[in-house]
């Protein structure tokens, strides 16, 4: 039961008496508090309410990466941070048994994210555990009209990405923050409501009324009754973000009529390439995880997803092999119009991996984990920031998994926000101020929107089986395969090296 507490709420303003102006502090301020929990006021347990500089709501991969990033920079490591997440693993630690088969929940980390992890000192905690770099990628579709083969050496790099289990990522970030000399406190609880002080308020002193933008604090109420104050609340609590809802951010988006089936499979030998085949109902991706294991992300319509989840393991393995191999259509041949095809002179003189030829993915021998099903949607918050609040990760944007970009965008947000906070502290600004948070939004929003648009474009382009469109897509495959500047640009953008998909 909540006890309604009567605060000294005075929407008109408060008279503050102050005698001397030179050297003596004026009377302490208090003001009206706008409730964002529909007028209900909870009682806070405990006598005093703790105050933090930043409250990170959501201790998942993206939230923890923000905390680690703040801990690693000299300008921000003195900050007092609260992490609010009811997951007991944050307090007890995440136990990982190296003998276990891989979890089906994995993320593909781009090289840009890997280097950011190294910068904050979290990568060293990840290295003892299973993770797999891949330097090749093959993309084709069911029409058999074209394919593209990417290689890391096309951009003079060692790898295109790294596949890591989510629990390994989380554990390494948790160890990083625990070993850092950083003031943090983990609240194993959920956020229930939040009080912000938006806009201007009137204050009166000696007859002078003034509109002052309050550099006040946000107040958070947690499910176990604790309350805390924070200058900045960061919403890192996922696609169903509570912070986003409480702060009143509107979102745009739609649900894809697709679900993703996720599982781990095993091969007879090591798989070192990432494979993605676009089928009529959606793409199937095979991502190498190391130790002969691979991760499957198979997008399809919801009915098929339920069927595939409930069928026997042996049948499932058969359908997977069928989908990756001859199912739904033929293999693409090495060239569309024979040896001297019109594209070959584009890449004249520059050897590309397009000449490597089409390869068939390795056969799946058995299923190594349970099958999980997730609905897919696209969602984007119209604003990422307002006074005292910032959204990062899935709370700000959810994308289709077809290019493995989702969590990388989230990490990009976290590192951008921590940098912006550092710059603000360098010039003595209040970190909850909207103008500085807008700088973070201006940096990340265009990049995120561009990526979402491209992924959505791909999703739509591949969901239609229409002759001329199929030929166009095939032409696209060929162009990407044989025109090396285009290929380099694609790899660079997908690796996170390039922020926007332009030839800049």
């Amino acid at each position, binding site marked *: 039961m909540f006890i309604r507490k009567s605060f000294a709420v005075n929407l008109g303003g408060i008279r503050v008496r*102050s005698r001397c102006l*030179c050297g003596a502090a004026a009377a*302490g301020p208090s003001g009206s508090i706008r409730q964002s929990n529909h007028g209900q006021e909870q009682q806070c347990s405990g006598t005093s309410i703790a105050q933090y500089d930043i409250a990170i709501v959501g201790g998942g991969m993206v939230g923890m990466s923000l905390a680690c990033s703040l801990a690693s920079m000299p300008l921000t490591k003195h900050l007092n941070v609260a992490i609010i997440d009811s997951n007991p693993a944050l307090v007890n630690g995440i136990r990982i048994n190296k003998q276990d088969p891989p979890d089906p929940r994995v993320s593909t980390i781009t090289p840009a994210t890997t280097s950011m992890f190294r910068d904050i000192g979290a990568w060293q905690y990840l290295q003892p555990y299973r993770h797999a770099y891949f330097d090749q990628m093959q993309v084709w579709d069911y029409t058999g009209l074209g394919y593209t083969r990417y290689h890391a050496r096309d951009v003079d790099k060692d790898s295109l990405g790294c596949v890591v289990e989510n629990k390994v990522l989380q554990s390494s970030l948790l160890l990083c923050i625990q070993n850092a000399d950083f003031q943090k406190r983990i609240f194993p609880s959920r956020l229930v409501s939040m009080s912000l002080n938006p806009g*201007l308020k009137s204050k009166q002193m000696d007859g002078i*009324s*003034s509109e002052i933008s309050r550099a006040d604090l946000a107040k958070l109420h947690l499910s176990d009754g604790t309350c805390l104050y924070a200058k900045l609340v960061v919403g890192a609590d996922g696609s169903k973000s509570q912070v986003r809802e409480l702060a009143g951010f509107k979102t745009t988006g739609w649900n894809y009529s697709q679900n993703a089936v996720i599982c781990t499979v095993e091969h007879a030998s090591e798989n070192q390439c990432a494979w993605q085949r676009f089928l009529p109902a959606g793409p199937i991706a095979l991502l190498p995880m190391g130790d002969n294991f691979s991760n499957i992300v198979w997008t399809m319509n919801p009915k098929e997803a339920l069927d595939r989840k409930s069928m026997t393991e042996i049948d499932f393995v058969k359908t997977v092999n069928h989908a990756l191999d001859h199912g739904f259509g033929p293999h693409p041949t090495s060239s569309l119009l024979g040896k001297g095809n019109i594209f070959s002179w584009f890449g004249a003189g520059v050897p590309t991996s397009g000449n490597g030829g089409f390869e068939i993915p390795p056969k799946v021998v058995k299923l190594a984990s349970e099958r999980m099903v997730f609905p897919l949607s696209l969602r984007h918050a119209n604003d990422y920031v307002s006074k005292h609040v910032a959204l990062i990760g899935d709370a700000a944007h959810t994308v289709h998994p077809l290019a493995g970009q989702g969590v990388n965008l989230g990490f990009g947000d976290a590192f951008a926000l921590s940098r912006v906070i550092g710059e603000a502290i360098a010039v003595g600004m209040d970190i909850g101020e909207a103008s500085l948070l807008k700088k973070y939004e201006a940096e990340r929003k265009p990049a995120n929107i561009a990526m979402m648009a491209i992924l959505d474009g791909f999703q739509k382009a591949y969901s239609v089986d229409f002759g001329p469109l199929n030929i166009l897509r095939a032409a696209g495959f060929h162009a990407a395969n044989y025109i090396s500047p285009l290929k380099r640009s694609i790899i660079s953008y997908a690796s996170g090296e390039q922020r926007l998909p332009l030839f800049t």
Partner: protein
Amino acid sequence: MASKLLHRVPWLLHRVGAVSAPLKYPRTLSPTLAAFASLRLLSDVAPRPLPVAATGNSPPASTSPAPQFSGSSEKFEHNAKSSSVRSSLKDPELAKFSAIADTWWDSEGPFKPLHLMNPTRLAFIRSTLCRHFGKDPSSARPFEGMKIVDVGCGGGILSEPLARMGASVTGVDAVDKNIKIARIHADLDPVTSTIEYCCTTAEKLVEEQRKFDAVISLEVIEHVADPAEFCKSLSALTIPEGALVISTINRSMRAYATAIVAAEYLLHWVKEMAGFVHNPLTGRWSLSDDISVNFIAFGTKKGQ
């Protein structure tokens, strides 16, 4: 006396030439702040050449008597009332600021350009002061233990960040309303509530024999009746080997002359200067070498 003047002429001509040169003061910012000043645009508008300045004495640091001006110095609003006790502000300016004092902290209000410019000014101040006093630029509170005075603090828009950077800040302003607003706002945050605000003038502080490690007076000198006196007072408030930062809008030939000549030719303490450039597309200000519009200057007072 005449021989002294003649002796100074070649030096003054040299200074005229120096100021007209496009990049007189090479700027090197500390690496952590390179991000702010990454748009170091070379000025494609050369600073306006200054007409030959007054052939008056150029006194050294503040211990000298009031400077003697010759007849051609009417470009300064130099008047006979050179009493150092009188407030140096012009009365119409006072009234103008009083009227809009309520909106100081409204970042979308009349002071919006100042709010937008603030981080850039602070970047310059942080960079130059850290270098001069040997402070660690990567520290969150580099000015810990330093006493800074913000002359013409207004609503405290500069004083508060300085306090957050660790300094013991005193803010003074001739407009009483500004001080009241500043006090209310500073008390909202425990870190900034330590700022001392006084409704007074630089001259009065000099009388009280106050001394500070750094004296900062931004966007004030263009409102001052007697810039030369004002600069003298600022200098008097600075400890030996202390720092002095002045900025102004170069609205007119006279403003340029007033500020540059008063600061440089009379007190010749300017060590480093930067211009402010506004990017209309992003709405952001950045530091540059173009000082023809708005500039900030940092100098130090010679030790005794």
